[in-house]
């Protein structure tokens, strides 16, 4: 009786959240699935075509290329992001002079808009007018100069680097919180036992932060698989599709060709793939929970 009354009391408190969830998540999701079974004209009339859009998706080399690039982007970006973000967070966890300044420097790009950052880096990467190639040539390393965004081998890593540069501050903040949460008595015990800071970092801190890393890796996968702004502005998916990801392909299909149903099917397939990948990563990285 008492428990039932408790449940009734909870309902009004849940309603606003449920309403928001329904309007901004469930409805768009359901509507996207609905649209994915239709074929549209540019003016907005449509008819149902069943699973035709899905059969097209699995046969579409453009989609498979975009999917492959999205995974590459996630992998390459992740390799650029996590070691650096962990190193910075660890360094900021030490007592260093100018810590607040360094925190500011690391976090500053986060507040810039993606469009501004993308345009700025587009010029930085420019083969002859930019900063990188002339600097390399000035240092006698001209052999390393590339047409960064115009070379199919370097374009994707170049865009991934900018994405990481822009957002790394957030990841550093999250990781710093993890470092600060570590129990000081455990670390102190390690120090008393004679462990150096590197040994503490490697053998105590990293294992204790494993759960946090698992969550952050899943977050990164979800975020980077949906990357759009940097690719769209910096390369438009080129050269010849080498940076095309599902987001940019969907945009072109939906808004240049007005194939909304097909674009929706691409999105739904991406959601399913992301759920599977996130679940797999979660499972692979899952270890016994540490209580501290």
């Amino acid at each position: 009786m008492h428990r039932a009354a408790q449940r009734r009391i909870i309902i009004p408190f849940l309603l606003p959240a449920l309403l928001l969830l329904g309007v901004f998540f469930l409805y768009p999701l359901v509507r996207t699935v609905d649209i994915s079974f239709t074929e549209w004209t540019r003016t907005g009339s449509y008819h149902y075509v069943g699973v035709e859009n899905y059969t097209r998706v699995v046969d579409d080399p453009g989609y498979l290329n975009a999917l492959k690039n999205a995974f590459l982007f996630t992998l390459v970006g992740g390799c650029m992001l996590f070691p650096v973000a962990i190193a910075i967070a660890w360094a900021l966890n030490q007592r260093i002079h100018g810590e607040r300044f360094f925190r500011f420097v690391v976090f500053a790009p986060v507040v810039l808009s993606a469009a501004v950052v993308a345009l700025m880096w587009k010029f930085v990467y420019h083969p002859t007018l930019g900063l990188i190639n002339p600097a390399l040539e000035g240092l006698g390393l001209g052999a390393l100069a590339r047409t960064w965004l115009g070379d199919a081998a370097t374009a994707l890593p170049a865009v991934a680097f900018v994405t990481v540069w822009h957002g790394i501050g957030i990841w550093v903040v999250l990781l710093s919180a993890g470092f600060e949460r570590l129990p000081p008595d455990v670390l102190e015990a390690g120090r008393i036992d004679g462990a150096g800071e590197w040994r503490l970092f490697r053998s105590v801190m990293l294992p204790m932060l494993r759960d946090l890393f698992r969550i952050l890796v899943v977050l990164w996968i979800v975020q980077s698989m949906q990357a759009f702004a940097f690719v769209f502005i910096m390369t438009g998916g080129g050269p010849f599709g080498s940076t095309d990801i599902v987001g940019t392909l969907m945009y072109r299909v939906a808004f240049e060709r007005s194939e909304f149903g097909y674009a929706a099917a691409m999105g739904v397939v991406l959601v399913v793939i992301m759920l599977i990948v996130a679940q797999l990563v979660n499972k692979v990285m899952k270890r016994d929970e540490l209580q501290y």
Partner: protein
Amino acid sequence: MKTMRFVVPLAAGCLALAACSGGDDGDTTDAGPDAASWHEQIEGSPLEVGVLSAEGTPGLAVLQELADGLEADYDGTDVTLTFANTDARPGIEQRWRSGDPLDVDYGMFDGTNPALTVWADDGALLDLRPYLEANDPETGTPWLDRFSPQVLEFMENPSDGGIYGVPSELSLHVLFYNAGLFTELGIEPPRTWDDLLAANTALKAAGVDPIAVTGLFEPYMGMWSDHLWLRTVGYDAARAVLTGGEGHITDDPGFLEGLEMLQQLRDDGAFLTGFEGTDFTAAQAQFFQGDAGMILMGSWLVSEMSDVIPADFQLGVVPFPTVEGGAGDQGAVMAALQEISVAAESENIPLALEWARRLTSVETQTQRAEEIGEVSAVVDVPSPPGIPGIDQVVADAESLEPRDYGIVQSPANEVIYPEIARLLFGEQDAQQTLERLDEGLRRVHGN
């Protein structure tokens, strides 16, 4: 299970909502005012007009002046200028789909592009023909007579003969060259392909990259293959194969010929150093800075780059070079007409028509040509002083052909321009490009 109690009814509700939303209701009315007396029915009211000029540009200032004039002449008029250029189009088109169109908008109609006649076919646009055929109250002659007959095919809907767009400006695809540099080096403006190759050689000898092009926007590299195929294959035949899905690209040797000519430019090192990683804004700026001798671009180049063109820069313009022995159209010029359309559902069609009438007046078009360098499709409007020779290009053109064969709006977009980029980047030769194009087009068109 407990969660499901909430989620299932919510999801069911969402599904019901989804089932009820959107739909086939594209009902629009085409009840414009009487063509003979529409001008007398103009009353002041809010009017939302799409514009292509960005905030702070001279182009927008001219349009604002036009809006101020309309507001002064008709009490209660309040004109809102809404940015409606490329990046804003998805949102604007969504407004049209949801029944909240702009009263006057760009990009809604192009009679030469099947992807852009659909709004007219579905009744979303006002048929302007009755109003264009009626006498203009100021000139006493039909409004339609203002426009160059060459652009009529862009304005007319092939399916019903109606006119659903009036030209605000005309963009011609031409070869711009640095006339000062050409004079200094004694190079003739390239009228033929051989002239172009000779110009390349002379420019390279002088240490200047011959041609500015961007590698970061594939359709601008594709402008070269578009024009070469226009000369070696011809507009209708090329369009039929590329976007119409009729026949195969290997059927006509002109396609390979065009690709080989493009490869020749690449192999000669004709393109701007580092073009592969150069954005179009930078490529255009480099042309005006003298880093390159020529650029193939739309006539909007001058108004778009007006802030960076040095005061002493001498610009020259010629049509795309002819190809001797080419089986295509040697006298054709590729063009795009920026047309404005009136929403059939506009609440004040007479006022919307008046905006279109004033925008296409000789006075306004002349002001736009002189102040912002825009080429006009209105007769008796002088050529923009910033593009000397463009009037000759228009006069000499045997026909104006729509740019890009409609590739960008078709699934072929995923195939054609990326392969052209591969060719220019040195990833493959002309023959390999043709083979990959053939494979891709067969897949896209299912033939």
